[in-house]
């Protein structure tokens, strides 16, 4: 529907609102100039919280400062972001989705390539997940690679079996957020604060959360690519 509506409304507004557009251009240029000035006055030395991170890195359970911030110091943000990802998928699913077009067979090149690439992509995702503890990498990167593998499979015509498209799929999608919440809640039950890892377990807990998050992120991204809720078996 969007495709058919957009060009029409655009030409209409183009005819009627030329002065308005000019005004908008002037205002936006002024805004850009103002922002540019504000940014140019910033000192190049930002106080940042880098030194705080560095000072506490040892007790965080990982040696990569980015992972330490994302999964320990500000893990609560990441927890909510996992929720955002799931909400995005729920939103897309609640739209009902586009009727799927059964395409012709993907052709030998795509077919063979996906067979070769998908195992490699899964391996790379595992590596990125593991390496995130002490070098650039982590759950979001690994999840994106996993999601890419899913997209490749979907392009090659593979579809999730109806047996797994119901509850098993939903469990996989919620694992990331679920494990995060459960870890946070269990820590509260044993008398600590929300997401206050004991330093000796911090590394293991972060890996657990990241592993679950990787799986969910990959699955969510692939499901977003598919667009509509996959048809499930009898259980729904």
């Amino acid at each position, binding site marked *: 529907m969007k495709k058919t509506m957009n060009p029409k409304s655009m030409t209409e507004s183009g005819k009627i609102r030329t002065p308005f557009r000019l005004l908008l251009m002037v205002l936006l240029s002024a805004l850009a100039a103002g922002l540019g000035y504000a940014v140019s006055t*910033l000192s190049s030395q930002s106080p940042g*919280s880098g030194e705080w991170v560095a000072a506490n890195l040892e007790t965080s359970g990982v040696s990569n400062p980015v992972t330490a911030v994302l999964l320990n110091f500000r893990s*609560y943000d990441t927890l909510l972001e996992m929720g955002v990802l799931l909400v995005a998928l*729920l*939103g897309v699913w609640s*739209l009902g989705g586009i009727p799927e077009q059964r395409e012709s067979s993907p052709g030998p090149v795509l077919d063979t390539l996906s067979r070769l690439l998908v195992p490699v992509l899964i391996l790379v995702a595992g590596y990125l997940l593991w390496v995130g503890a002490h070098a650039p990498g982590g759950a979001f990167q690994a999840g994106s690679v996993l999601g890419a593998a899913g997209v490749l499979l979907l392009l090659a015509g593979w579809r999730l079996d109806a047996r797994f498209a119901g509850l098993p799929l*939903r469990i996989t999608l919620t694992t990331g957020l679920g494990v995060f919440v459960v870890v946070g809640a269990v820590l*509260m039950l044993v008398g600590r604060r929300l997401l206050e890892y004991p330093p000796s377990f911090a590394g293991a807990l972060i890996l657990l959360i990241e592993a679950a998050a990787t799986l969910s992120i990959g699955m969510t991204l692939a499901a977003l690519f598919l667009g509509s809720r996959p048809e499930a078996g009898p259980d729904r």
Partner: protein
Amino acid sequence: MAAIPWGVMAILLPLAGAMACFLSPRRASPLGLITALGVVACAAGLGWQVAEQGAQRYAIGGWGAPLGIDLYADGLSLLMLMVTAVVGLGISVYSSGYFNREKAVNFWPLWMFLWSALNALFLSADIFNLYVTLELLGLAAVALVALAGGADALTGAMRYLLVSLLGSLAYLLGVALLYHSFGCLDIALLAERMEPSPAVMAAMGLMSAGLLLKTALFPLHFWLPPAHASAPAPVSALLSALVVKASFYILLRLWLDVFPVTAAGLGQLLGLLGAAAVLWGGLQALRQTRLKMLIAYSTVAQLGYLFLAFPLGSNVAWQGALYLLLSHALAKAAMFMAAGNILCFGGHDRIADLDRVAQRLPLSLAAFGLAGVSIMGLPPSGGFIAKWLLLEAAMRSGQWWWVIILILGGLLAAAYVFKVIGYAFTQAVMTHEARAVPATMEWAALVLALVAILLGLVAPWPLALMEIGLPFGGEAAG
């Protein structure tokens, strides 16, 4: 803080509820209702805690401010959380009767996520964390608007999504500028380190503009009526009652704590826009032929009152604005629910054809009328207390022109409420098959409207809660 962290539970519980509803769609409705009761208990627990021990700060992960994220609950966040709990419970009860099974599967997880985002937003003390909660809130809200299906709802939802994203991004840009300038994200720390600079002014402009867009203050309100009117009734209720208030809450926090020095001329501007919103929203509401559009424009007008406190800036004015926010949340939720009942019963919401709703849906019409009392600001409702406080603040500061706006706004509100009630009593020929409305849906609307009235009778209690932690700064009100 060794005691039970009720605030954290108010965030985690709806998250868990959302996942449970998603995993078990067949039991989504009962699971959602149980979660709603749990969240109300958490809000009550936090209320008791804050009332007994004063404002609470909770360091997530045990790291504390510059490194980690803090949650902070004072009187302001507590009242927001509590009104969300009351309205949320009402919406949950209403929705259990409203949606058919197919829609309920999609509604419950999204609504639980939205509730969690609201609670997280009201408790957050960190400006980046606030951005994350805004994102969660905005996405869930857009998806809920689209739930109605049909071209109107999808167009409304799409516009809402773009507006929501633009607002969030402007806010985020401001956050980046502030973080670069001061090296921290915690509101209290920012307030300590604040010193005016071009970057701070830019951040203030960006964040305020983004939040005003999301709050739908007068010239930026264009997206609100289509989105709020085309959504399913419980969603309209929660959007008008709660979601627009969330961005206003952030604006209030920033205004009161982070940017206090730079406020002078901008306060007057916000007041003027607020006054324009009161008049424009009221006039537009009067012109509408559809009940839900009328109520949506009434929201535009009521949001305007909130901004009248900015030029006044006194403790009493802030209390008045907050009181208006609380009573409007309850009354507007009740109004949209009543409209939903009428729509569900008659199959349309054309105001001119509201044939004898008074006899057919007496409870819903009573809910609409009582909510209208609070919207108009007649005693003994919560809306009356709010307007009284605002009047008092305006008189005290000598800015009498705001008084005229308050009175005109009240008259306009009376005009559009009575227009609806008048048509509801007229006799017309029954043109369609009437559908029965579940009793829960009628009672949910009526109870919320009654609470809005009750808010006027128990005024000293919320006013005392507002003082906890002195969110509005300065001395207690005389």
